[in-house]
């Protein structure tokens, strides 16, 4: 884009500078004049339609509270066409603002009925937005001017000798564990094929105890897994655990002859 302007000085008058409302523009509008080299950078510098409008208003020392809407709309549209012509990425927001300006302009031209004297000025909303934007534009500049780390503020960089640090292990709360389980189950339930059901933990725990006690080499007496002191429930839980392990082919039951002692061993 830029080369169009940098090399165009001799025959600039011949070339249409921009198309404004369908009319070729060969002369840069006087009130808009910016050296062409700077124009591209300049137009890209706007942070949006409010920023552009504020610029137009400030440049002419106009009062935000009392914008000559027709004049500003005209200038705004000229910039839009320039940006369009330069094929700058023209955000949709610029066009929305253009239509808002056009609407305000048309409403201001309408005569108002006497009884609606108190009706808001059609510009009120625009003025409110401009003021609010200006306020934060200034706030951003003030914030940027504050002393800050990496620019004005440097932390001290004092060397630390090689100290022996005992690395602390992360701590985990039971709640963390529970919420991790809940999350993983909730997620798994979204796939129909997985059913993480509410199997009684006592059985699972007993399965682990059984697995813990047996090994592939040794035979453990089946009877050893039942402790009468645990009562009926305890015996049943052990029995279900062993059946479950059998079903999962994790253990083997061995009996040499009928009525001989039954032994449990890990499946090899």
């Amino acid at each position, binding site marked *: 884009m830029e080369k169009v302007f940098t090399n165009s000085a001799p025959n600039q008058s011949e070339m249409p500078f921009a198309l404004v409302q369908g009319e070729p523009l060969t002369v840069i509008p006087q009130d808009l004049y910016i050296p062409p080299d700077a124009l591209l950078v300049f137009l890209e510098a706007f942070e949006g339609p409010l920023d552009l409008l504020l610029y137009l208003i400030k440049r002419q020392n106009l009062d935000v509270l009392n914008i000559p809407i027709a004049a500003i709309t005209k200038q705004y549209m000229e910039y839009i066409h320039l940006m369009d012509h330069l094929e700058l990425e023209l955000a949709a927001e610029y066009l929305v603002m253009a239509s808002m300006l056009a609407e305000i302009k048309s409403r*201001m031209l309408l005569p108002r009925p006497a009884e609606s004297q108190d*009706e808001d000025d059609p510009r009120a909303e625009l003025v409110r937005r401009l003021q609010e934007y200006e306020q934060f534009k200034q706030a951003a500049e003030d914030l940027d001017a504050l002393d800050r780390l990496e620019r004005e503020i440097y932390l001290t960089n004092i060397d630390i000798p090689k100290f022996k640090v005992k690395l602390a292990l992360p701590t985990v709360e039971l709640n963390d564990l529970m919420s991790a389980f809940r999350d993983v189950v909730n997620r798994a339930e979204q796939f129909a094929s997985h059913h993480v059901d509410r199997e009684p933990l006592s059985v699972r725990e007993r399965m682990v105890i059984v697995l813990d006690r047996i090994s592939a080499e040794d035979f453990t007496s089946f009877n050893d897994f039942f402790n009468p002191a645990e009562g009926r429930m305890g015996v049943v839980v052990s029995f279900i655990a062993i059946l479950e392990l059998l079903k999962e082919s994790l253990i083997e039951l061995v009996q040499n002859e009928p009525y001989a002692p039954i032994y449990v061993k890990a499946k090899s």
Partner: protein
Amino acid sequence: MEIEKLKPVLEALFSASDKPLSVAQLFDLFAGDIEQPSKDEIRKAIEELVEKYEGSGFQLKQVASGFRFQVRTDFETWVVRLWEQKPPRYSRAMMETLALIAYRQPITRGEIEDIRGVSVSTNIIRTLEERNWVKSLGHKEVPGRPALYGTTREFLDYFNLKSLNELPSLVEIRDLDQFTPELAFTEDSEAGTG
């Protein structure tokens, strides 16, 4: 522990830590020590250390999340010569977004966009979050449940502030009541012809 014995320990801690340390954090660091200092003793020792470093090349400075040693800005001229790297600069879009979050928190992205008049790129929010300057505080109970953003302590620390109160005050907005419909009409008929 006596204040005079406590002071060098605190100096060692402040100089070794890469983050500001609060009185509460320091108090916890001494937990279990036979001579565990009280919070008041820690405060007193810090006060004396702040004084001790007046006139030095660095200072013990209070920011949002505690105290830290930092080089005095008076010596920036020389200190910058140590580095070749230029400090990072942030775009206007980023600073405006950050300013809105700082002054208007909790605020949604949509509200930021309304005020700025342009859309806020996801990148800006992500960068602010990655820098730990901004965090999501929850969700606004409106359709879409947009995240509500606010600033963090790290944001204040970065900008060398103790609290949000220390942010430069916003410029006053002039009152809209100054608006007079009559005036508007005369203005417009002039402008319309021009």
